[in-house]
């Protein structure tokens, strides 16, 4: 029960709020400044991706960012309700997130293809 979850309509204006939440939880969980920079960017990228997916497919259902600091790793899950194949424009965002997180997986969400991203950071890395 130490998950913090932020639910919001898939709009670009809320992405900054999601970054703030992820970084605030990670900071309290004791992660280092380099990891906080990585988390800020990764969560920003994955939320921007979700907003784009929802915009492209006309989805207005809220998206969700969950940050779980209970285990040995800080785990973050970003979920949207869109159903969309991987777009060409996602390449850079995904490359960045792969480069900045300790583990990253892409799976289906409640709406279909590509709607859920798992990110995690080892607490001990810094």
């Amino acid at each position: 029960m130490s998950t913090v979850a932020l639910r919001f309509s898939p709009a670009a204006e809320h992405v900054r709020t999601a970054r703030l939440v992820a970084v605030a939880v990670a900071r309290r969980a004791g992660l280092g400044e380099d990891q906080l920079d990585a988390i800020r960017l990764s969560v920003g990228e994955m939320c921007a991706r979700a907003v784009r997916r929802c915009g492209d497919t006309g989805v207005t259902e809220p998206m969700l960012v969950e940050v779980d600091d209970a285990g040995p790793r800080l785990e973050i899950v970003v979920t949207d309700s869109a159903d969309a194949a991987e777009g060409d424009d996602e390449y850079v965002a995904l490359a960045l997130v792969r480069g900045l997180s300790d583990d990253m997986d892409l799976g289906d969400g409640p709406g279909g293809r590509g709607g859920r991203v798992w990110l995690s950071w080892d607490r001990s890395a810094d």
Partner: protein
Amino acid sequence: MELTVTSRQEGARTVISVSGEIDVYTAPSLRERLNELVASGHYDLVVDMEGVEFLDSTGLGVLVGGLKRVRSHDGTLRLVCAQEKILKVFRITGLTKVFPIHATLEEALADTSSTPDGADA
């Protein structure tokens, strides 16, 4: 912290100072500004990113778009950035090979090469 974009002329160069967060929400306003400058005949741009606190891939896309636009007019787009966390974003995405990146504005203004590594300077 919204995005602030100001521009001024330094000889033949146009210096665009950007501060705040460049992200999916604010990047369109930077794109618009770059497009306006190019449309009004400014083809040698220096984007000063010292005041940038956050940069995501949407922001990178805008800078790449600006670079393509000035190049179609044989122009240049140089970046000024010394912040490690921002440089890292260019490095991971391979864009350090595409943009000339300078640590200071003075250095960017002094640079007369047209390739990232200054090979033809």
